């Protein structure tokens, strides 16, 4: 029977069910986890013997740049990223190329080989939603969704200036449905709009040009609107001043803004069985903490500012963040933060691209190489790991490289090794610039993450944070039958032998998606069906009508017609709307 499988005798890690390495069997029927299979089902079911191996829910990446206009710009402006890193086609798989920005097919395969089954695109500019969906549709192996970039949107800024909360809410709801996107992304609020005039913002109370809205207004309003609408994930923030020495302070102040916002995710979904509360309680999800936590005042006295952020996160419960680790080597920096990319161009002199997405947002792309011999890069390496190790409760953190900004996602196994092995970190200190030790606290941090914690920061918590734990990031009954089985025996695990940790996480023994083995020992063996998630928010019809009148009136300034603006469902692979109930 398709999608039916038994995984026997593995050491299971399912943090949402407080299962920490227990030997047990996992049953999947018709693509969903079930408590057990009946005798008839067991008769000719596929059985996997996971004895001496670990079994985790399929990996969930809640922040990765994998599809859309700027990702594709990264591909086209970097032929040098492709000619040495490629894969030939096989009877089952497409060919592909690209190291930091792989082609859609290669990217899907590489994620699947590492045990990932769900990936969310971190930034979808509304005007580029069609392009993003076209690429997501062609990315094999993964269930996907994307976050809509709204932090510098003209309509929202206008409604906030006018104080018209109902129209602002109606606008967000309509935009999510129109572009088939999942949650709110807020990039350098106010700053990207000012960049259209050659400027940026440098403080939270600096009103932006023309709209008179401050970054603080924007973050607060988006967080409130997010909860008013009942969106499954918190507002996803890329803070102001990113990438500038000393930016940790503005990041910390930004995190304080939505502290009092009461969270009300409200979706009509069936929840998988979990022991822990699988719903999020955070009102803000900070992205790539490392890039937002620069200390010092210049590149000369540059240092880690991570502790300022993690101290705040440790003592407050409304914040969750992903790390944006830097594993050294080639990267391609790509972000909706256009001015930040320009600053990097001035710093490096490298080729760069910048785009203004009319009335909506911006973006930029630049190739980057993190060198062990470079003092600043070495500090950034240490900072990414500090951010994950300093936060005591792993339910507040998510492991990413902000792929491909800190490094490509294929380096995740290396990051896991650094988190699990102090020796791995000490050995890297010996190879990299001494600033890594002198200007961060990582050298004296002795924490070594457990496999359970790794399961939290790579699957359980990303899924919980974005409201997907009703079916992802857990092996509870009713969850999707997405499983990653790694060749690690926890009883024989020796963290000092970190090279073997890297090897084990690089390719799973089995990656199972919806009850079907799709990847085995680093080889793709089946191409599964995939789902594309978006939020369908129910709102007041009158508010929507009033709002749409404004939008249509203004649309004469867009270069495309109003009817061509929405992304039809045919652009999505198995469109899966999630019903969201806005506050009445």
């Amino acid at each position: 029977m398709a999608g039916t499988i038994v995984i026997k005798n593995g050491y299971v890690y399912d943090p949402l069910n407080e299962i920490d390495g227990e030997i047990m069997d996992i049953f999947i029927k018709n693509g969903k986890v079930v408590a057990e299979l009946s005798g008839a089902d067991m008769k000719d079911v596929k059985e996997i013997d996971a004895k001496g191996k670990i079994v985790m829910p399929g990996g969930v990446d809640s922040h990765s740049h994998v599809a859309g206009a700027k990702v594709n710009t990264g591909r086209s402006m970097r032929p040098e990223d492709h000619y040495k890193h490629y894969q030939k086609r096989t009877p089952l798989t497409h060919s592909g190329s690209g190291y930091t920005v792989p082609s859609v097919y290669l990217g899907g395969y590489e994620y699947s080989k590492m045990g990932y089954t769900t990936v969310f695109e971190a930034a979808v500019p509304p005007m580029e939603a069609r392009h993003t969906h076209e690429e997501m549709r062609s990315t094999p192996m993964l269930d996907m969704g994307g976050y809509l970039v709204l932090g510098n949107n003209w309509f929202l800024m206008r409604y906030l200036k006018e104080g018209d909360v109902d129209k602002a809410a109606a606008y967000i709801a309509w935009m999510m449905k129109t572009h088939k996107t999942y949650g709110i992304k807020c990039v350098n609020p106010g700053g990207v709009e000012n960049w259209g005039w050659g400027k940026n913002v440098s403080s939270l109370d600096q009103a932006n040009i023309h709209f008179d809205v401050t970054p603080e207004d924007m973050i607060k309003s988006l967080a409130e609107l997010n909860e008013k609408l009942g969106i499954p994930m918190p507002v996803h923030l890329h803070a102001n001043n990113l990438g500038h020495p000393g930016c940790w302070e503005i990041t910390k102040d930004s995190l304080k803004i939505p502290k009092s916002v009461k969270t009300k995710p409200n979706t009509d979904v069936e929840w998988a069985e979990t022991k822990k509360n699988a719903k999020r309680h955070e009102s803000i999800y900070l992205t790539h903490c490392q890039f937002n936590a620069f200390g010092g005042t210049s590149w000369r006295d540059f240092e880690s500012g991570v502790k300022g952020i993690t101290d705040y996160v440790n003592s407050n419960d409304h914040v969750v963040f992903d790390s944006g680790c830097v594993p050294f080597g080639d990267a391609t920096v790509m972000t909706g933060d256009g001015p930040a990319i320009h600053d990097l161009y001035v710093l490096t002199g490298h080729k760069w691209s910048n785009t203004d997405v009319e009335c909506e947002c911006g973006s930029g792309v630049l190739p980057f190489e993190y060198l062990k011999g470079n003092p600043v890069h070495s500090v950034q390496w240490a900072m990414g790991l500090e951010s994950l190790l300093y936060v005591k409760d792993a339910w507040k953190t998510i492991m990413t490289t902000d792929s491909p900004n800190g490094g490509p996602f294929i380096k995740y196994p290396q990051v896991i090794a650094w988190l699990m092995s102090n020796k791995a970190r000490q050995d890297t200190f010996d190879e990299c610039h001494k600033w890594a030790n002198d200007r961060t606290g990582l050298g004296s941090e002795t924490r070594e993450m457990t496999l359970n914690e790794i399961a939290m920061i790579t699957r359980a918590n990303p899924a919980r944070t974005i409201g997907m734990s009703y079916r992802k990031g857990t092996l509870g009954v009713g969850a999707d039958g997405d499983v990653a089985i790694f060749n690690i025996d926890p009883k024989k695990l020796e963290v000092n032998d970190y090279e073997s940790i890297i090897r084990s996480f690089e390719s799973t023994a089995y990656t199972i998606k919806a009850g079907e083995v799709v990847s085995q020992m680093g080889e793709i063996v089946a191409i599964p069906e995939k789902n594309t998630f978006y939020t369908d928010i129910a709102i007041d019809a009158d508010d929507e009508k009033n709002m749409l009148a404004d939008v249509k009136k203004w649309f004469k300034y867009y270069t495309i017609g109003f009817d061509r603006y929405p992304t039809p469902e045919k652009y999505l692979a198995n469109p899966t709307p999630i019903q969201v109930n806005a506050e009445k």
Partner: protein
Amino acid sequence: MADVILKPIGNFDLSVEAEVVTPDNFAGKTADEIGKVLVWQGPAEYPLIDFFTVEGNGGSSAEDTTIIIDGDIPRVKRIGQQMTAGKILIKGSAGMHVGSAMEGGEIIVEGDADSWVGMEMTGGSIHIKGNTKDHLGCAYRGSWKGMSGGRITVDGDAVSQVGGGLSGGEIIIAGSVKHFCGIRINGGLIVVKGNAFRTVGAEMTGGTIVIGGCIERFTPGFEMTDVESDLKFNDIECLGDYMKFTGDYAIPQKGKGTLYVSCDNNECL
């Protein structure tokens, strides 16, 4: 020393990708086995014997192996790619990418060579006795990490993008070059005995360029610091008087490259 002699006999209407033709690959193989090595032509793979007669066995190691190509092969690409030792002698003209990403050993081309000679090479030596075209010792498209070691000598002319992104090693051209000679180099040495047209050393941040002839259009962004005579870089000598410039100051990084230009041939500077 074992010589493997390849004589071109095939149809090269579609160019042939011959990155397998290296001493490393031929070492330890008999003439028969070498003939069976596959090369790409367009969308299909064919044995080498379809294109060349093969005479002689490979040596016991790459060092002991010399490959002699007895004829013109302007449409055979990638000869000597990534070779680490041994010798290749091409008795006619060579196609693109001769010695690309080469790590060691020696290549001699008695005729002309097409573009991309010694692309991103890290060691060894290449000697082109005729002329060559673009991207000599340069980085791949989109990259600025060019040749980092070894030496390329050209007896004739080269065209554009000589040594783009060079970070080490030497390029010596007896003839002239055209555009973007030494663009974005950050190390190494480029000596052009003849003329250059324009954009010499554009965006360079390190390394040394010597132009013995005339630069038709001098690159803005350079500042003259000195006049020096009879330059000597190890075994490479450049006789005469040279104006010494530093740059390129036209980029935010304020380059620290050195550009020597012949005084006699550039009186307008």
